[in-house]
């Protein structure tokens, strides 16, 4: 808070706080609200039932279920998408840079409610067309859909459980790094093998001029 004894505090000037309203007593809450939040936006974007069905169908096409892995729609991928699409009242500045209004318009216009009921082959063909489109907006929309699906699906505990159960190389994987870490799961160095390693260094007084490759010498100044 502004000091009552500015001279003693060495204050030269005191304009309104940067990045906050003049009426804010402390701008830090406003700064926090402007930054990317862990877990995405809250409140999240709301989709219509049709839009949610389309997005579920998109995710299920990008990562088909099977082999012990659930479908994205079964693990509520739509919740994740709702939190990581930027709401209309927020500045569009965070990955995957999908803004609510445009994203919804693309879901409705480029996919449409019929996408949800289409065959898997037709859905795949539609998404492939977007992926390979020369239209930058369409291609970018596909990348957003894929990123949201990949990041969302593999963040779900049900999917982590499937990885542990189905994949020998994923047996130890438990998703969020903390609080458990992987103590006791990481193999140590074998005892007493260090004297076998080769290696050497050039001592300070042993440094001498090397021959510089001719074209490097021609390319750069050499002192």
């Amino acid at each position: 808070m502004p000091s009552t004894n500015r001279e003693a505090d060495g204050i030269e000037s005191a304009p309104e706080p940067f990045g906050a309203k003049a009426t804010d007593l402390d701008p830090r809450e406003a700064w926090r609200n402007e930054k990317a939040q862990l877990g995405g936006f809250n409140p999240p974007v709301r989709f219509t039932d049709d839009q949610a069905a389309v997005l579920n169908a998109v995710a299920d096409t990008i990562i088909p279920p099977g082999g012990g892995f659930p479908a994205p729609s079964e693990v509520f991928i739509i919740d994740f998408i709702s939190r990581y699409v930027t709401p209309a009242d927020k500045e569009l500045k965070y990955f995957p840079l999908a803004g609510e209004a445009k994203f919804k318009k693309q879901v409705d216009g480029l996919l449409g409610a019929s996408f949800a009921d289409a065959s898997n082959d037709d859905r795949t063909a539609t998404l492939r067309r977007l992926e390979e489109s020369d239209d930058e907006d369409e291609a970018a929309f596909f990348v957003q859909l894929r990123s949201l699906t990949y990041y969302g699906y593999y963040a779900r505990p049900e999917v982590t459980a499937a990885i542990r159960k189905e994949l020998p190389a994923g047996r130890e994987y438990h998703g969020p790094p903390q609080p458990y870490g992987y103590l006791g799961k990481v193999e140590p160095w074998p005892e007493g093998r260090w004297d076998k390693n080769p290696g050497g260094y050039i001592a300070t007084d042993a440094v001498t001029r090397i021959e510089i490759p001719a074209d490097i010498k021609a390319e750069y100044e050499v002192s």
Partner: protein
Amino acid sequence: MTFRTNGSNGADRNSTDVLIIGSGMSGAAFAKRLTDAGMKCTLLEQGDWIRPVEYDHFHDEFDIERNRGWAYDPNVRQGPEDFPVTGFTTPYMINAVGGSTIHYAAHWPRYKPIDFRKGTEHGVAGNIDWPISYEDLAPYYDINDAEVGISGVHGDPAYPPRPNAPRQKPINPGKLGLKFAKGLDQLGWHWWPSDNGIITEGRDGRLPCNECGNCLQGCPRGALAGMDVSLIPKALANGLDLRTNARVTRIVAKGGKATGAEYIDRVTGETHFVSANIVILAANGIGTPRLLLMSAQEGHPDGLCNANGLVGTHLMHHSFAFVDCWFDDPVEGYLGAFGAPLYSHEFYHSDSSRGFVNGVAMQVGRSFGSAYAANGTHTGAVMPWGANHREHFNEHFGHHLLVFMFGEDLPIKENRVTLDPEVKDSSGLPAPHVEFNVSENDRRLCEFGVERITDVANALGASETNHTGVLSPPPGWHLMGTARMGNNPEDSTTNMYSQTWELPNLFIADGAALTTGGIVNPTSTIGALSTRAAEYIKQNYQNIVEQSKTPANADAPGLSNRELELSAA
């Protein structure tokens, strides 16, 4: 000693013995050592404290946060505490108590003796010899290592012995580290378990590493050597006056001396001036030249310490390329401390027959989580979608091993930091602008490094590899060389004790001060250099305060090792 007592505040808040700008490795090392000596130190940090719950480690969505609020690049995070950086660059840094040490690998290798003698070795581009040797710096590496807390193994034949640097047991390699070591063994190449600023045994109230693998996102346990948990708390206990959200607008100079610095309290918007007998600028290899350039004033029309036009030039990042390798058997790259479990310095030294000068190092890293794997891991190899996705994911996740090479890049005068004439930070101060091109020598070196890593992958029977090729711009983990230490006022910005040639009581020993980059992560060297400069101030405070001109290297009052030994005891 005539300096003031610690912790005196109140009416004396606007003057101090030593004013430190920036709380990363350099600023924290100065703060610790100088408050140990009883000096009154004020530290200005434009960021705030990061609390453990603010890290992404506890969240299911931790992988995506790497692209958002926990991105390495301030231009992606876009927080008001950071400043934007324009130009052809991907700068990795963060403004917070602890600086970028709260968001790094904490790999802790040292320079080798030859790294201080690149002028003698070849003198290509802007290379000059450092005015100091490895031996001059070694005692300070030891002190800083002891104070920060380092894990590793003594005895690497590729380094001079360092018996006085305490080491906790090394981080565990896991299947990943053991595998790559085996490949290097097959080829008869050097490798060694890495020194890491990651504690494997609790100390200073910090929890030991529990091998979660998310080191690059910081560490809510305090196992990673963030200065916010290692040196800053010790300095605070000594009475350090730490001011957060304090964004410095300029350093003021008068009569050939720095008189202090002006800063904005970002919370109140008030501008303050703190006068000081000595000023330490420790704002990193981009922030430090930015502030010198922003401090243009009467008598210093081109910025402080820039009469020779060198401030901001000779920027180095290290040349980088990443190689992802996959194997049929489990590698489990998602677990284990990142840091670097091991490194190979087989190709550290110059060999003219390769067609370039300088060398490359290999470092082994980890894989992060399943979502990161699906999105292409370190080389952007995004997994296929649709019918083939499941099979591809199942074959690759947990089978991945990352090796990256970095090479010593040449200090090139044109690779530089200037002020952007248009873009501003949230306080209206000019953003730094970076021009950086990877030149021919460094491209060749990258290609060579990728080939050698691929040799190891092939020796191990990798099922697949993918690499980035030379990264241009390189990932800006290491910000070096823009206000370098040197031999005279014509070739550098500071003398051999980190005093700027232009203002004897302004010191720089952060990444900007590094004359060459070696082929190692720079933090331990920044810590050693800063500890050494702090010891110089401690031993010569009055002399420095009374100097009207920065002494030539040969004429400086110097450092007494006897005093150093006494203080260590």
